[in-house]
């Protein structure tokens, strides 16, 4: 029992903070602020790749440095706390890479993993559909076998983040329409500039090009796009989602935002201290639950229900903190980056208005996380 980072990890954290202090502008509040933010993200990703930090914890054979899960935890915490300057690259590092290592062919691993490690590939996840959200297995996008062995894709995906900048897509599609719901699905690794793919931004309050719809009309892809076994894509997707949950150090950003809000609110915050410390106690709980999920992954090689417990705790902490910020800062919390009067250059707006309200609908809804905890953590029966 020892729940501290090592001195080397403290050093890594310090280095990261210095790096981010130098390389992020004062107006940086995340990639979803406009084209300039995307360009800034690209620069930071390139510098991180040069330092070997982008895939620091991958095996060396795939372009990593062999860092431990705990080194990765430090990196995730610092980057997420600073509004994830990697943008979509975090997906490549945190869950696409591990899933490719687990399910990819030699050819796929040789092709995609070094690209991710160099920061040269941008991925998007193509799961949700207009009629398939939490009930993901009811998706309809069809990938029909073509005469040449490849696939022809038709259908619609929705709520896709990063589709505008993605070079590749991680697509879950139905390859056997006769099979029952969870069977007959496959994962295809596609290039997003393939003819027949139409991307449209869905304007929202949560960020520039944050959400998109993606239409596939007779999109032809080769057989080599298939990841894993044909018709067994559900297993691949279910392996990917927990990595996504355990890879989001959302609690780190929340804790930092509470401190930023405290500085903004100044003397007014004194009266709020009682509630803030109760919330920080919840934050410490979220931290430890995330560390437990990392420890489970380290010891078993798998991401279990503990990742869902951690993600749900992150959500509780994030939304309680956002409510505190609204209470202390008022409607000024809604003034965004770019406005000269925005509190903390818009950091609070990005957190409390754009991020926190959506935490309970990301990486599986909050209710999905609770179902997983209830059924796998408590042994409750499957709900009907």
């Amino acid at each position: 029992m020892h729940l501290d980072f090592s001195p080397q990890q403290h050093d890594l954290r310090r280095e990261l903070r210095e790096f981010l202090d130098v390389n992020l502008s004062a107006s940086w509040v995340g990639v979803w602020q406009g084209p300039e933010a995307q360009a800034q993200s690209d620069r930071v990703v390139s510098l991180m790749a040069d330092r070997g930090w982008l895939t620091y914890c991958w095996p060396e054979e795939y372009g990593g440095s062999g860092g431990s899960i705990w080194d990765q935890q430090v990196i995730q915490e610092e980057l997420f706390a600073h509004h994830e300057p990697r943008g979509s690259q975090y997906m490549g590092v945190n869950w696409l890479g591990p899933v490719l290592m687990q399910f990819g062919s030699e050819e796929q691993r040789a092709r995609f993993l070094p690209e991710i490690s160099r920061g040269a590939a941008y991925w998007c996840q193509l799961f949700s559909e207009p009629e398939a959200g939490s009930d993901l297995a009811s998706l309809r996008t069809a990938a029909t076998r073509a005469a040449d062995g490849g696939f022809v894709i038709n259908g619609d995906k929705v709520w896709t983040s990063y589709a505008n900048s993605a070079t590749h897509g991680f697509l879950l599609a139905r390859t056997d329409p006769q099979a029952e719901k969870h069977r007959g699905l496959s994962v295809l690794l596609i290039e997003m500039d393939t003819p027949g793919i139409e991307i449209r931004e869905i304007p929202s309050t949560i960020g520039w090009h944050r959400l998109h719809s993606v239409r596939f009309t007779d999109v032809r892809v080769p057989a080599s796009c298939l990841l894993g076994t044909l018709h067994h894509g559900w297993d691949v997707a279910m392996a990917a989602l927990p990595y996504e949950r355990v890879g989001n150090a959302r609690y780190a950003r929340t804790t930092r935002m509470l401190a930023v809000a405290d500085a903004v609110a100044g003397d007014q915050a004194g009266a709020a201290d009682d509630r803030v410390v109760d919330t920080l106690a919840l934050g410490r709980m979220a931290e430890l639950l995330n560390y437990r999920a990392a420890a489970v992954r380290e010891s078993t090689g798998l991401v279990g229900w503990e990742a869902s417990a951690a993600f749900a705790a992150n959500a509780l902490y994030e939304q309680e903190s956002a409510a505190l910020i609204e209470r202390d800062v008022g409607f000024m919390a809604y003034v965004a980056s770019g406005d000269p009067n925005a509190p903390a250059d818009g950091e609070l707006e990005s957190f409390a208005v754009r991020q926190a309200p959506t935490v309970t609908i990301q990486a599986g809804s909050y209710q999905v996380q609770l179902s997983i905890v209830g059924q796998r953590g408590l042994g409750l029966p499957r709900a009907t």
Partner: protein
Amino acid sequence: MKGEGMRFDLPDTAEQLRSEVARWVDRRVPARGSTAAFSPDIWREFVHIGLLDPSVDELHRCVGLVEACRHGMCGPVLEARLGLLADPSGTAERELADGRVVTSVAPSPAGATLVGWGSVADLVVDQPSGAIVSREPLPAVRMAQPMPHGWYRRGAAATADPFDRERWLTGAAIIAGLAQGALALAVQHTADRRQFGRQLASFQAVQFPLAECKILVDGLYLMVLDAADRADRGTQDRVTQDRVTQDRVTQDRVTSALAWLAAVRCAEATTRACHQAFGALGFCLEAGLVQLTWGMAWLRLTSATPAARSYLAAHRQRQDHRSAPGCLVLEAFDGNDP
């Protein structure tokens, strides 16, 4: 692998202790159906396990207390612990070792003060002063549920708490055990009880609050173990370093206060969710739930929550520089004494 990581595994000795206490609880402490207010025999057996022994380190004590309280508190667990710390004469320790019921009075304003298990006590210690204030049972408190608490009339106010860290940590460990027990009872009840032709547990409206409790209960357990480990490291290192320096390093008081606040949150949520899952049966003594939820209420409502909040608020660090605020909760506190 480059960096070594955190270790969640308990030392072998703590695992053995946990198993032994678990076996004792399952064998001797009824999980449900007991209407007795207090069993001197079970209290004596609990004391002889040694969890209240001042020489036991906090990690082992907390691991044991969590297990020991899964079926309810068998006596003044927190009060005896603090009474032993307060009494400089060693009388309380000797009386306890002889199987007597030792309890203590928490800091409080002047006037009538509630004392846990005071009406069955053989010895009552005043926590702030360490004085022995009674050698006989105190007048019983009238309550709907048989809890043998007693009344003590304090002459002058005594509000300084010399054992805040121990109160927060021990109290959090006990609540972790009580909450685990309450959740286990509720899960079992929802598996056994059928409505609309199916198990209660198969309804999402029942599952979700129980899953939220599971998250809080697990999280609290981790916080207790972490705070206990830091307290032990602080105790060891204070041999060569002053307390202020070491508090800054191990943050044992900060983590204990945070664990206490988390315990209060966990107790409130678990009480609410488990009683809702149980329905009317949950308020009947035969179900065993009220013994746990009233135990949590006793701790969360009589222990020093305002003091924990004040301590943490006084130790929060404020930084104005954009990139300066850390992203870890313990970075938000300096850990120094005021």
